[in-house]
Protein backbone atom coordinates (compact mmCIF):
# COMPACT_ATOMS: atom_id res chain seq x y z
CA UNK A 1 0.00 0.00 0.00
CA UNK A 2 2.84 2.34 0.93
CA UNK A 3 4.65 1.64 -2.34
CA UNK A 4 1.43 2.34 -4.23
CA UNK A 5 1.15 5.66 -2.45
CA UNK A 6 4.78 6.45 -3.32
CA UNK A 7 4.17 5.62 -6.98
CA UNK A 8 1.09 7.87 -6.97
CA UNK A 9 3.10 10.69 -5.42
CA UNK A 10 5.88 10.19 -7.93
CA UNK A 11 3.42 10.30 -10.81
CA UNK A 12 1.85 13.42 -9.38
CA UNK A 13 5.19 15.22 -8.95
CA UNK A 14 6.34 14.10 -12.42
CA UNK A 15 3.18 15.52 -13.93
CA UNK A 16 3.61 18.80 -12.08
CA UNK A 17 7.25 19.03 -13.14
CA UNK A 18 6.42 18.29 -16.76
CA UNK A 19 3.97 21.18 -16.78
CA UNK A 20 6.24 23.68 -15.01
CA UNK A 21 7.97 26.32 -17.08
CA UNK A 22 11.35 25.21 -15.71
CA UNK A 23 11.17 22.02 -17.74
CA UNK A 24 12.19 24.13 -20.76
CA UNK A 25 15.64 24.70 -19.28
CA UNK A 26 18.33 22.85 -21.18
CA UNK A 27 21.20 21.09 -19.46
CA UNK A 28 24.71 22.34 -20.27
CA UNK A 29 28.33 21.32 -19.89
CA UNK A 30 28.49 23.00 -16.48
CA UNK A 31 26.55 21.36 -13.70
CA UNK A 32 23.83 23.52 -12.18
CA UNK A 33 23.83 25.86 -15.21
CA UNK A 34 21.16 25.71 -17.90
CA UNK A 35 20.32 27.62 -21.06
CA UNK A 36 16.98 28.72 -22.36
CA UNK A 37 15.73 30.82 -25.22
CA UNK A 38 13.42 33.76 -24.66
CA UNK A 39 12.10 34.94 -28.01
CA UNK A 40 9.92 37.60 -26.37
CA UNK A 41 12.60 39.20 -24.19
CA UNK A 42 13.52 42.75 -25.16
CA UNK A 43 15.16 44.42 -22.16
CA UNK A 44 17.19 43.21 -19.21
CA UNK A 45 14.13 43.12 -16.95
CA UNK A 46 12.47 40.67 -19.36
CA UNK A 47 15.52 38.42 -19.42
CA UNK A 48 15.86 38.58 -15.63
CA UNK A 49 12.26 37.75 -14.78
CA UNK A 50 12.04 35.05 -17.46
CA UNK A 51 15.19 33.29 -16.26
CA UNK A 52 14.33 33.68 -12.57
CA UNK A 53 10.86 32.19 -13.03
CA UNK A 54 12.31 29.19 -14.85
CA UNK A 55 14.98 28.63 -12.21
CA UNK A 56 12.42 28.92 -9.44
CA UNK A 57 10.31 26.16 -10.94
CA UNK A 58 13.26 23.84 -11.60
CA UNK A 59 15.55 23.47 -8.62
CA UNK A 60 17.95 21.32 -10.61
CA UNK A 61 19.64 24.58 -11.65
CA UNK A 62 20.55 27.79 -9.86
CA UNK A 63 21.69 29.80 -12.85
CA UNK A 64 20.79 30.02 -16.50
CA UNK A 65 21.89 31.78 -19.65
CA UNK A 66 18.81 33.33 -21.23
CA UNK A 67 19.37 33.90 -24.93
CA UNK A 68 17.69 35.74 -27.73
CA UNK A 69 19.61 35.74 -30.98
CA UNK A 70 23.13 36.91 -30.25
CA UNK A 71 22.21 38.39 -26.88
CA UNK A 72 22.79 36.34 -23.77
CA UNK A 73 22.06 37.26 -20.17
CA UNK A 74 23.21 35.29 -17.13
CA UNK A 75 20.51 34.98 -14.50
CA UNK A 76 21.22 33.67 -11.00
CA UNK A 77 18.60 32.81 -8.40
CA UNK A 78 19.67 32.90 -4.76
CA UNK A 79 17.96 32.22 -1.49
CA UNK A 80 17.00 35.17 0.60
CA UNK A 81 17.52 35.05 4.36
CA UNK A 82 15.79 36.86 7.17
CA UNK A 83 16.84 37.55 10.72
CA UNK A 84 15.49 35.41 13.52
CA UNK A 85 15.30 36.63 17.10
CA UNK A 86 17.83 33.96 18.07
CA UNK A 87 21.46 34.88 18.57
CA UNK A 88 24.34 33.04 20.17
CA UNK A 89 27.39 34.58 21.77
CA UNK A 90 30.69 32.98 22.72
CA UNK A 91 34.08 34.46 23.68
CA UNK A 92 32.97 37.92 22.68
CA UNK A 93 31.71 36.84 19.25
CA UNK A 94 28.05 36.58 18.45
CA UNK A 95 26.05 35.14 15.62
CA UNK A 96 22.57 36.01 14.60
CA UNK A 97 20.80 33.00 13.19
CA UNK A 98 19.03 33.62 9.94
CA UNK A 99 16.35 31.57 8.30
CA UNK A 100 15.47 31.22 4.65
CA UNK A 101 12.91 33.79 3.61
CA UNK A 102 10.60 31.60 1.61
CA UNK A 103 8.52 34.59 0.51
CA UNK A 104 11.22 35.90 -1.83
CA UNK A 105 14.35 35.07 -3.77
CA UNK A 106 17.27 37.28 -4.82
CA UNK A 107 17.96 37.61 -8.52
CA UNK A 108 21.14 38.62 -10.36
CA UNK A 109 21.03 39.31 -14.09
CA UNK A 110 24.05 40.45 -16.07
CA UNK A 111 24.55 40.62 -19.86
CA UNK A 112 27.15 38.14 -21.13
CA UNK A 113 27.18 39.08 -24.80
CA UNK A 114 25.36 41.24 -27.28
CA UNK A 115 23.69 44.42 -26.12
CA UNK A 116 20.57 44.68 -24.03
CA UNK A 117 18.91 47.73 -22.53
CA UNK A 118 18.44 48.10 -18.81
CA UNK A 119 20.41 48.09 -15.59
CA UNK A 120 21.84 44.80 -14.31
CA UNK A 121 20.01 43.14 -11.44
CA UNK A 122 22.20 42.76 -8.41
CA UNK A 123 20.47 40.62 -5.78
CA UNK A 124 17.10 42.18 -6.45
CA UNK A 125 14.42 40.75 -4.18
CA UNK A 126 11.60 39.09 -6.10
CA UNK A 127 8.53 37.61 -4.42
CA UNK A 128 8.03 33.90 -4.98
CA UNK A 129 4.39 34.62 -5.80
CA UNK A 130 5.40 36.71 -8.80
CA UNK A 131 7.92 34.07 -9.88
CA UNK A 132 5.12 31.49 -9.87
CA UNK A 133 2.82 33.84 -11.78
CA UNK A 134 5.51 34.53 -14.37
CA UNK A 135 6.11 30.80 -14.72
CA UNK A 136 2.41 30.26 -15.38
CA UNK A 137 2.48 32.99 -18.04
CA UNK A 138 5.48 31.39 -19.73
CA UNK A 139 3.79 27.99 -19.64
CA UNK A 140 0.63 29.41 -21.17
CA UNK A 141 2.65 31.06 -23.92
CA UNK A 142 4.39 27.76 -24.59
CA UNK A 143 1.05 25.97 -24.76
CA UNK A 144 -0.27 28.65 -27.08
CA UNK A 145 2.74 28.12 -29.31
CA UNK A 146 2.10 24.38 -29.38
CA UNK A 147 -1.59 25.03 -30.09
CA UNK A 148 -0.65 27.42 -32.88
CA UNK A 149 1.68 24.85 -34.38
CA UNK A 150 -1.07 22.22 -34.19
CA UNK A 151 -3.49 24.57 -35.95
CA UNK A 152 -0.93 25.33 -38.61
CA UNK A 153 -0.21 21.65 -39.09
CA UNK A 154 -3.92 21.00 -39.56
CA UNK A 155 -4.20 23.88 -42.01
CA UNK A 156 -1.19 22.88 -44.06
CA UNK A 157 -2.45 19.31 -44.15
CA UNK A 158 -5.80 20.59 -45.41
CA UNK A 159 -4.11 22.81 -47.98
CA UNK A 160 -1.95 20.00 -49.32
CA UNK A 161 -4.87 17.58 -49.50
CA UNK A 162 -7.04 20.06 -51.44
CA UNK A 163 -4.31 21.75 -53.44
CA UNK A 164 -5.38 25.33 -52.66
CA UNK A 165 -5.26 27.80 -49.81
CA UNK A 166 -8.32 27.80 -47.61
CA UNK A 167 -10.45 30.93 -47.36
CA UNK A 168 -10.59 33.02 -44.21
CA UNK A 169 -13.83 31.39 -43.14
CA UNK A 170 -12.36 27.97 -43.74
CA UNK A 171 -9.43 28.88 -41.52
CA UNK A 172 -11.85 29.94 -38.83
CA UNK A 173 -13.73 26.70 -39.24
CA UNK A 174 -10.57 24.61 -39.12
CA UNK A 175 -9.15 26.28 -36.04
CA UNK A 176 -12.61 26.15 -34.49
CA UNK A 177 -12.01 29.37 -32.61
CA UNK A 178 -11.49 32.45 -34.73
CA UNK A 179 -14.69 34.24 -35.74
CA UNK A 180 -14.85 34.80 -39.50
CA UNK A 181 -15.31 38.59 -39.24
CA UNK A 182 -11.76 38.91 -37.92
CA UNK A 183 -10.43 38.32 -41.41
CA UNK A 184 -11.89 41.56 -42.80
CA UNK A 185 -13.60 42.30 -46.06
CA UNK A 186 -11.20 41.01 -48.67
CA UNK A 187 -10.09 37.95 -46.73
CA UNK A 188 -6.46 38.61 -47.55
CA UNK A 189 -4.73 37.06 -44.61
CA UNK A 190 -1.58 35.28 -43.75
CA UNK A 191 -2.67 32.17 -41.89
CA UNK A 192 0.86 31.61 -40.66
CA UNK A 193 0.38 34.52 -38.28
CA UNK A 194 -2.40 32.83 -36.30
CA UNK A 195 -1.81 33.04 -32.58
CA UNK A 196 -3.62 32.03 -29.43
CA UNK A 197 -4.32 34.53 -26.70
CA UNK A 198 -4.72 33.27 -23.17
CA UNK A 199 -6.80 35.40 -20.91
CA UNK A 200 -8.20 34.90 -17.44
CA UNK A 201 -11.31 33.22 -18.86
CA UNK A 202 -9.74 30.88 -21.38
CA UNK A 203 -8.10 31.18 -24.77
CA UNK A 204 -8.90 32.41 -28.26
CA UNK A 205 -6.99 31.83 -31.47
CA UNK A 206 -6.60 34.84 -33.74
CA UNK A 207 -5.47 34.93 -37.33
CA UNK A 208 -5.13 38.65 -38.09
CA UNK A 209 -4.92 39.97 -41.63
CA UNK A 210 -1.47 40.29 -43.11
CA UNK A 211 -0.36 43.86 -43.78
Amino acid sequence: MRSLLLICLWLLTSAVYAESCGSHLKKTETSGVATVECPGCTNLNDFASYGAAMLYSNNQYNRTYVTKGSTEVEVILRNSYRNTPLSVGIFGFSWNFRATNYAERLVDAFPRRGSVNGAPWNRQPVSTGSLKAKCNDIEKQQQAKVQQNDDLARLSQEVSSRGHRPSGDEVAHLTGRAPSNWFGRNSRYNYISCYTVWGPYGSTTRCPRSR
Partner: protein
Amino acid sequence: MKEAMKYALAIAITAAAMFACMYDAPPERAVQEVTQKASSQNHPSALPTSSKQTADQPKRELSAAELADIDPASIDWEAMRERYDTNSDPMALRWSFLGEFTDAEIAAFNKLHVVPFNPMIDQTCERSLSGIEGVGDADGVWEVCTPIYLYDEHPYAFLSLEELKPLAENDPYAAELAIRIAEDFQSRMDYALQAVALSGKPGPIFEGLQRSSLISLEDNRDPNQILAEVGVKMVFQNLSARLGDPRADTQSLLALLNEYLQSEEDKKDFLTEVQISAQALAEQLAKAQTEKTGQTTIAEAINA
Protein backbone atom coordinates in the same frame (compact mmCIF):
# COMPACT_ATOMS: atom_id res chain seq x y z
CA MET B 1 16.46 4.52 35.23
CA LYS B 2 17.24 3.15 31.80
CA GLU B 3 13.71 4.02 30.69
CA ALA B 4 14.12 7.55 31.97
CA MET B 5 17.36 7.97 29.99
CA LYS B 6 15.66 6.72 26.85
CA TYR B 7 12.88 9.21 27.46
CA ALA B 8 15.34 12.07 27.98
CA LEU B 9 17.25 11.11 24.85
CA ALA B 10 14.04 11.06 22.81
CA ILE B 11 13.14 14.54 24.08
CA ALA B 12 16.63 15.84 23.26
CA ILE B 13 16.49 14.43 19.70
CA THR B 14 13.00 15.86 19.14
CA ALA B 15 14.09 19.26 20.46
CA ALA B 16 17.17 19.26 18.25
CA ALA B 17 15.08 18.34 15.21
CA MET B 18 12.55 21.07 16.00
CA PHE B 19 15.33 23.60 16.43
CA ALA B 20 16.82 22.60 13.08
CA CYS B 21 13.43 22.89 11.36
CA MET B 22 12.50 26.18 12.97
CA TYR B 23 15.69 28.03 12.34
CA ASP B 24 16.85 26.39 9.15
CA ALA B 25 20.46 27.21 9.96
CA PRO B 26 22.05 28.60 6.82
CA PRO B 27 25.10 27.11 5.16
CA GLU B 28 28.50 28.48 6.10
CA ARG B 29 28.51 30.87 3.14
CA ALA B 30 25.17 32.32 4.14
CA VAL B 31 26.41 33.03 7.64
CA GLN B 32 29.39 34.75 6.11
CA GLU B 33 27.04 36.85 3.98
CA VAL B 34 25.14 37.84 7.07
CA THR B 35 28.18 39.06 8.91
CA GLN B 36 29.36 41.05 5.94
CA LYS B 37 26.02 42.45 4.87
CA ALA B 38 26.00 44.95 7.71
CA SER B 39 29.02 46.79 6.33
CA SER B 40 27.80 46.76 2.72
CA GLN B 41 24.14 47.52 3.22
CA ASN B 42 24.36 50.95 1.62
CA HIS B 43 26.46 49.65 -1.24
CA PRO B 44 24.37 47.25 -3.29
CA SER B 45 27.15 46.36 -5.68
CA ALA B 46 29.41 45.24 -2.92
CA LEU B 47 29.51 41.47 -2.80
CA PRO B 48 30.87 39.29 -0.04
CA THR B 49 34.59 38.84 0.03
CA SER B 50 35.80 35.32 0.57
CA SER B 51 38.32 34.71 3.31
CA LYS B 52 40.72 33.15 0.77
CA GLN B 53 40.79 36.32 -1.27
CA THR B 54 41.46 38.53 1.71
CA ALA B 55 44.29 36.30 2.79
CA ASP B 56 45.80 36.22 -0.67
CA GLN B 57 45.61 39.92 -1.39
CA PRO B 58 48.70 42.04 -0.85
CA LYS B 59 48.64 43.86 2.44
CA ARG B 60 50.06 47.07 0.97
CA GLU B 61 49.24 48.97 -2.19
CA LEU B 62 51.51 48.15 -5.11
CA SER B 63 53.53 50.96 -6.66
CA ALA B 64 52.94 52.02 -10.27
CA ALA B 65 56.20 50.32 -11.27
CA GLU B 66 55.18 47.10 -9.57
CA LEU B 67 51.77 47.19 -11.25
CA ALA B 68 53.38 47.79 -14.63
CA ASP B 69 55.63 44.82 -14.05
CA ILE B 70 53.00 42.48 -12.65
CA ASP B 71 52.95 38.85 -13.72
CA PRO B 72 49.35 37.76 -14.53
CA ALA B 73 50.21 34.30 -13.21
CA SER B 74 50.73 35.82 -9.74
CA ILE B 75 47.00 36.58 -9.45
CA ASP B 76 44.62 34.05 -7.92
CA TRP B 77 41.98 34.30 -10.64
CA GLU B 78 39.93 31.51 -9.13
CA ALA B 79 39.68 33.43 -5.85
CA MET B 80 38.57 36.51 -7.78
CA ARG B 81 35.75 34.53 -9.39
CA GLU B 82 34.77 32.95 -6.08
CA ARG B 83 34.54 36.39 -4.54
CA TYR B 84 31.67 37.20 -6.85
CA ASP B 85 30.15 33.74 -6.62
CA THR B 86 29.90 33.16 -10.33
CA ASN B 87 31.04 30.50 -12.78
CA SER B 88 31.65 33.22 -15.33
CA ASP B 89 34.73 35.41 -15.24
CA PRO B 90 33.40 38.86 -14.22
CA MET B 91 36.50 40.66 -15.52
CA ALA B 92 36.48 39.04 -18.95
CA LEU B 93 32.77 39.87 -19.19
CA ARG B 94 33.59 43.43 -18.11
CA TRP B 95 31.21 43.35 -15.17
CA SER B 96 33.07 46.25 -13.60
CA PHE B 97 29.83 47.45 -11.97
CA LEU B 98 30.38 44.67 -9.42
CA GLY B 99 33.18 46.80 -8.00
CA GLU B 100 36.04 45.88 -5.68
CA PHE B 101 38.48 44.58 -8.27
CA THR B 102 41.98 45.13 -6.94
CA ASP B 103 44.64 47.23 -8.65
CA ALA B 104 46.77 44.11 -9.07
CA GLU B 105 43.92 42.22 -10.76
CA ILE B 106 43.23 45.13 -13.08
CA ALA B 107 46.90 45.58 -13.98
CA ALA B 108 47.28 41.85 -14.65
CA PHE B 109 44.08 41.79 -16.70
CA ASN B 110 45.32 44.70 -18.80
CA LYS B 111 48.52 42.82 -19.53
CA LEU B 112 46.47 40.00 -21.03
CA HIS B 113 43.92 42.10 -22.95
CA VAL B 114 43.89 44.80 -25.59
CA VAL B 115 40.82 46.68 -24.30
CA PRO B 116 41.69 47.73 -20.75
CA PHE B 117 39.42 46.97 -17.83
CA ASN B 118 37.36 50.03 -17.00
CA PRO B 119 36.82 49.94 -13.25
CA MET B 120 33.82 51.47 -11.57
CA ILE B 121 35.01 54.32 -9.37
CA ASP B 122 31.65 55.32 -7.98
CA GLN B 123 27.96 54.89 -8.60
CA THR B 124 24.76 56.79 -8.19
CA CYS B 125 21.92 54.76 -6.78
CA GLU B 126 18.31 55.69 -6.69
CA ARG B 127 15.31 53.99 -5.22
CA SER B 128 12.25 53.90 -7.40
CA LEU B 129 9.22 51.75 -8.10
CA SER B 130 10.38 48.72 -10.05
CA GLY B 131 7.20 48.67 -12.11
CA ILE B 132 7.45 44.89 -12.22
CA GLU B 133 5.00 43.00 -10.09
CA GLY B 134 6.65 41.32 -7.12
CA VAL B 135 10.08 42.81 -7.80
CA GLY B 136 11.63 44.99 -5.10
CA ASP B 137 10.76 45.33 -1.45
CA ALA B 138 7.28 44.92 0.00
CA ASP B 139 6.27 48.26 -1.57
CA GLY B 140 7.67 47.32 -4.97
CA VAL B 141 10.61 49.72 -4.56
CA TRP B 142 14.02 48.67 -5.82
CA GLU B 143 17.40 50.30 -5.98
CA VAL B 144 18.95 50.83 -9.39
CA CYS B 145 22.56 51.89 -9.53
CA THR B 146 24.32 53.64 -12.40
CA PRO B 147 28.06 53.05 -12.34
CA ILE B 148 30.59 55.81 -12.93
CA TYR B 149 33.60 54.36 -14.69
CA LEU B 150 37.22 55.48 -14.63
CA TYR B 151 37.35 56.07 -18.39
CA ASP B 152 34.81 57.12 -20.98
CA GLU B 153 33.95 54.35 -23.39
CA HIS B 154 36.20 54.20 -26.46
CA PRO B 155 34.37 55.50 -29.57
CA TYR B 156 34.68 52.02 -31.11
CA ALA B 157 32.43 50.68 -28.35
CA PHE B 158 29.47 52.41 -30.00
CA LEU B 159 30.08 50.97 -33.46
CA SER B 160 28.02 48.21 -35.01
CA LEU B 161 29.57 44.91 -36.01
CA GLU B 162 29.51 45.98 -39.68
CA GLU B 163 31.46 49.09 -38.79
CA LEU B 164 33.93 47.24 -36.56
CA LYS B 165 34.59 44.44 -39.05
CA PRO B 166 36.92 46.38 -41.43
CA LEU B 167 38.66 48.09 -38.50
CA ALA B 168 39.28 44.73 -36.86
CA GLU B 169 41.45 43.69 -39.80
CA ASN B 170 44.28 45.89 -38.54
CA ASP B 171 43.27 47.18 -35.13
CA PRO B 172 43.33 44.72 -32.22
CA TYR B 173 41.19 47.09 -30.15
CA ALA B 174 38.37 46.88 -32.68
CA ALA B 175 38.84 43.11 -32.96
CA GLU B 176 38.53 42.60 -29.20
CA LEU B 177 35.47 44.82 -29.03
CA ALA B 178 33.88 42.86 -31.88
CA ILE B 179 34.03 39.71 -29.71
CA ARG B 180 31.30 41.24 -27.50
CA ILE B 181 28.77 41.63 -30.27
CA ALA B 182 29.73 38.85 -32.67
CA GLU B 183 26.70 36.76 -33.48
CA ASP B 184 28.02 33.24 -33.29
CA PHE B 185 30.82 31.17 -31.82
CA GLN B 186 32.84 30.98 -35.00
CA SER B 187 32.89 34.70 -35.76
CA ARG B 188 33.50 35.49 -32.07
CA MET B 189 36.58 33.28 -32.05
CA ASP B 190 37.70 34.66 -35.45
CA TYR B 191 37.77 38.15 -33.96
CA ALA B 192 39.53 36.80 -30.88
CA LEU B 193 42.27 35.24 -33.02
CA GLN B 194 42.63 38.46 -35.01
CA ALA B 195 43.02 40.44 -31.79
CA VAL B 196 45.65 37.99 -30.54
CA ALA B 197 47.60 38.04 -33.82
CA LEU B 198 47.58 41.84 -33.94
CA SER B 199 48.42 42.43 -30.28
CA GLY B 200 50.35 39.35 -29.19
CA LYS B 201 48.18 39.27 -26.05
CA PRO B 202 46.38 35.99 -25.28
CA GLY B 203 43.38 37.43 -23.38
CA PRO B 204 40.95 37.82 -26.30
CA ILE B 205 40.69 34.01 -26.66
CA PHE B 206 39.69 33.70 -23.01
CA GLU B 207 37.18 36.52 -23.43
CA GLY B 208 35.75 34.87 -26.55
CA LEU B 209 35.31 31.58 -24.68
CA GLN B 210 33.75 33.34 -21.70
CA ARG B 211 31.26 35.06 -23.97
CA SER B 212 30.28 31.83 -25.66
CA SER B 213 27.28 29.76 -24.72
CA LEU B 214 27.80 26.57 -22.81
CA ILE B 215 27.43 23.32 -24.71
CA SER B 216 23.85 22.14 -24.54
CA LEU B 217 23.52 18.55 -23.31
CA GLU B 218 19.91 17.98 -24.21
CA ASP B 219 18.91 14.33 -24.31
CA ASN B 220 17.92 14.43 -27.96
CA ARG B 221 21.27 15.89 -29.11
CA ASP B 222 23.59 13.80 -31.21
CA PRO B 223 26.52 12.82 -28.93
CA ASN B 224 28.92 13.26 -31.86
CA GLN B 225 27.79 16.85 -32.22
CA ILE B 226 28.34 17.42 -28.51
CA LEU B 227 31.80 15.84 -28.74
CA ALA B 228 32.65 18.05 -31.73
CA GLU B 229 31.76 21.15 -29.69
CA VAL B 230 33.76 19.84 -26.74
CA GLY B 231 36.74 19.31 -29.05
CA VAL B 232 36.59 22.81 -30.52
CA LYS B 233 36.36 24.43 -27.09
CA MET B 234 39.21 22.31 -25.78
CA VAL B 235 41.40 23.38 -28.69
CA PHE B 236 40.81 27.04 -27.83
CA GLN B 237 41.40 26.42 -24.11
CA ASN B 238 44.60 24.62 -24.99
CA LEU B 239 45.67 27.42 -27.31
CA SER B 240 44.97 29.98 -24.62
CA ALA B 241 47.20 28.06 -22.20
CA ARG B 242 49.98 27.70 -24.81
CA LEU B 243 49.96 31.46 -25.33
CA GLY B 244 50.48 31.96 -21.61
CA ASP B 245 47.06 32.94 -20.30
CA PRO B 246 47.05 31.76 -16.66
CA ARG B 247 43.23 31.75 -16.61
CA ALA B 248 42.99 29.06 -19.32
CA ASP B 249 41.08 26.12 -17.96
CA THR B 250 42.10 23.00 -19.84
CA GLN B 251 40.49 20.63 -17.34
CA SER B 252 36.88 21.82 -17.17
CA LEU B 253 35.64 19.71 -20.07
CA LEU B 254 37.41 16.50 -19.13
CA ALA B 255 34.50 15.31 -17.00
CA LEU B 256 32.21 15.72 -19.98
CA LEU B 257 34.61 13.79 -22.14
CA ASN B 258 34.53 10.92 -19.66
CA GLU B 259 30.76 10.93 -19.90
CA TYR B 260 30.66 10.73 -23.68
CA LEU B 261 33.72 8.62 -24.41
CA GLN B 262 33.84 5.41 -22.41
CA SER B 263 36.95 3.84 -23.89
CA GLU B 264 40.31 5.07 -22.59
CA GLU B 265 41.76 4.70 -26.07
CA ASP B 266 39.10 6.94 -27.59
CA LYS B 267 39.74 9.55 -24.92
CA LYS B 268 43.47 9.42 -25.58
CA ASP B 269 42.94 9.81 -29.34
CA PHE B 270 40.54 12.68 -28.74
CA LEU B 271 42.98 14.55 -26.49
CA THR B 272 45.87 13.94 -28.89
CA GLU B 273 43.77 15.44 -31.67
CA VAL B 274 43.07 18.47 -29.47
CA GLN B 275 46.79 18.96 -28.83
CA ILE B 276 47.68 18.65 -32.52
CA SER B 277 44.95 21.10 -33.55
CA ALA B 278 45.93 23.62 -30.87
CA GLN B 279 49.57 23.47 -31.95
CA ALA B 280 48.62 23.93 -35.61
CA LEU B 281 46.40 26.88 -34.73
CA ALA B 282 49.15 28.44 -32.61
CA GLU B 283 51.62 28.13 -35.49
CA GLN B 284 49.14 29.79 -37.85
CA LEU B 285 48.68 32.60 -35.35
CA ALA B 286 52.42 33.09 -35.01
CA LYS B 287 52.73 33.29 -38.79
CA ALA B 288 49.85 35.77 -39.02
CA GLN B 289 51.39 37.92 -36.29
CA THR B 290 54.75 38.09 -38.05
CA GLU B 291 53.13 38.89 -41.41
CA LYS B 292 50.86 41.58 -40.00
CA THR B 293 53.03 43.21 -37.36
CA GLY B 294 56.55 41.89 -37.77
CA GLN B 295 56.46 40.71 -34.15
CA THR B 296 57.44 37.20 -33.04
CA THR B 297 56.04 37.08 -29.50
CA ILE B 298 53.55 34.32 -30.29
CA ALA B 299 56.21 32.11 -31.88
CA GLU B 300 58.38 32.69 -28.81
CA ALA B 301 55.53 31.81 -26.46
CA ILE B 302 54.67 28.55 -28.18
CA ASN B 303 58.27 27.49 -28.50
CA ALA B 304 59.11 28.33 -24.90
